[in-house]
């Protein structure tokens, strides 16, 4: 096995992530998946939007595109259609992917373009200072919901299944081995694969809601989800115990897997058809 550090651009360190943020664990799990699949790093393109999770692409030694807020699936669509031999992975966050970029995400899923989207959900806008996101649970405190969030939150996986994603999974940043397995599985899927990773934001979410620092948040997330088993077997997922950190009724594991035609642009019209 390759040292995952060899996939990093060491000259870009130190990174921007806060102490206790699990995004680094998620990145490591991803790089291990890349290594397991023996992907050609010259042919691996990573595309991101704006936010803490999106900054990950700057640190990895692939072809990397740090685009605009929420639009990563659209950039990735052009990249993949123009050069189908590339493995294209989008890294996005809950605000980037589900608020400003929600439309692009659901349409990429609907088309079933052969890309993988990793959505790192930390239930808050971290980079801009802890504002409420579409994933912030009702009642949770954020800088723009000082008296508790009054809006219901999105279940990203249900949304993506509804939009037609042919592969949907949810994993916890607290379970890195599972994460690597699911990411390798998702990237091997032919068609649109969506993986939501429940990550943490101790700096804002943790402090505002008194749920501790990074270690406490992750331990607590892991304990809450101790029942996860066999995430790679289709439809064998368990209920995630409702908590104040994740929306009620959330399930982990592979939630959707289907085979359907992959989008590759408009087919050729023969002259006699036009």
């Amino acid at each position, binding site marked *: 096995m390759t040292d995952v550090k060899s996939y990093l651009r060491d000259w870009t360190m130190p990174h921007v992530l806060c102490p206790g943020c699990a995004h680094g664990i998620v990145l490591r799990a991803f790089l291990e998946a890349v290594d397991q699949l023996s992907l050609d790093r*010259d042919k691996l393109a990573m595309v991101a939007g704006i936010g803490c999770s999106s900054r990950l692409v700057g640190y990895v030694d692939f*072809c*990397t*595109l740090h685009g*605009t807020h929420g639009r990563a699936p*659209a950039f990735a669509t052009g990249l993949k259609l*123009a050069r189908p031999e590339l493995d294209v992975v989008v890294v996005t966050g809950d605000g980037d992917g589900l608020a400003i970029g929600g439309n692009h995400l659901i349409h990429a899923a609907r088309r079933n373009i052969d890309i993988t989207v990793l959505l790192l959900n930390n239930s808050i806008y971290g980079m801009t200072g802890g504002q409420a996101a579409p994933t912030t649970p009702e009642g949770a405190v954020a800088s723009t919901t000082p008296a508790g969030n009054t809006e219901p939150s999105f279940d990203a996986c249900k949304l993506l299944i509804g939009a037609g994603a042919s592969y949907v999974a949810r994993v916890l940043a607290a379970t890195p081995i599972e994460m690597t397995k699911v990411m390798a599985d998702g990237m091997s899927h032919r068609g649109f694969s969506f993986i939501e990773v429940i990550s943490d934001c101790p700096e804002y979410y943790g402090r505002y809601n008194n749920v501790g620092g990074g270690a406490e948040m992750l331990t607590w997330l892991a304990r809450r989800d101790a029942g996860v088993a066999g995430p790679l077997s289709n439809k064998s997922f368990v209920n995630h115990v409702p908590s104040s950190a994740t929306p009620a009724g959330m399930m982990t594991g592979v939630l959707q897997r289907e085979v359907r035609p992959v989008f590759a642009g*408009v087919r050729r019209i023969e002259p006699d058809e036009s």
Partner: protein
Amino acid sequence: MSETRLVQGNEACARGALAAGCRFYAGYPITPSSEIAEHMVRFLPGVDGVFVQMEDEIASLAAVIGASLAGSKAMTATSGPGFSLMQEHIGFATMAEVPCVVVDVMRGGPSTGLPTSPSQGDVMQARWGTHGDHPAIVLAPSSVGEVFDLTIRAFNLAERFRTPVILIYDEIIGHTRESVVLSESVEVESRLSPNGDPATFWPKLAPDDDVPPLPAFGDGYRFHVTGLTHDERGFPTTDSDEAGALITRIHRKVEVHREEISEVETFMLDDADIAIFAYGIVGRSAREAVQRARSAGVKAGLIRPVTLWPFPYASVAEVASQVDTLIVSEMNLGQLIGEVERAAAGRAEIVGHLRADGEPITPTELLDVAMSGGGSRP
């Protein structure tokens, strides 16, 4: 080889794009530009190109940028409301230096405005629509034939300078059918590719003319592209020296090549006392008005910028020092007239003939203005 065909302006745009080597189109339906997409979807698969209809105009230009980074010459087309949505990625493509072509077929605005009527209301938006300091290259054809030629030129300039190029024309040109010579052997330029060792390649290290080479994703050069202010390696920086160097270079690469980019048509200016400044479809009305004024004994002439941005300040200044009156006519309430005033700097009387009611400016109207030596600036 070339072929003469009766084509619509929007079809000429699609055919020009194809001739220039465009192999990727992403767009979203909008009047009066939709025919460009409808032609591209028929043309592209035949040349192993890709067509995709995206969920909105923001996504359309994002997909175009993605395709361009994958090595394809790529284009999108839209009209006012969609052009507003594209400003975000015009800025991104400028900052990240991604070649691409954006076509704006102007209709009446603001907002939904007059979807099926002509306008020239977006010429300032084409210059300043996206936020921050940025250069702009904007071309304005005045005939269907020129749409074909300038679409090719737009691709060449985009590739040459690694920047988005905007082709802007109004609904009349977009929907008019004219007989056009469609040349198949056109001069086509492509972006500079790096030829060094990928391990020592830094994407923003620019040669003398300020335009860095650009490999495609997948070519073996692993590099980073970002809309954040970045250093020569392409990675984010907040260092003021590096920030200053980047913003200066992306301006300079267009500014120092102003002569190469700029194109201005002049007509009967040699002995003119009165000149009309007009572009796009109004340029054609103005040309006719000049001819009629000459027949009536008035020494009129025309200056028509084909390149709107960078603005031809020197050419306008030269005309202003020669004539007594410079009539500026545009289908808006006064956009480029401000630039003409800046360029003329008091050397000639500037008179505006402007309208923004969805009706074209006719030769007769302009003849009346020229004959009376006065205008009707609201």
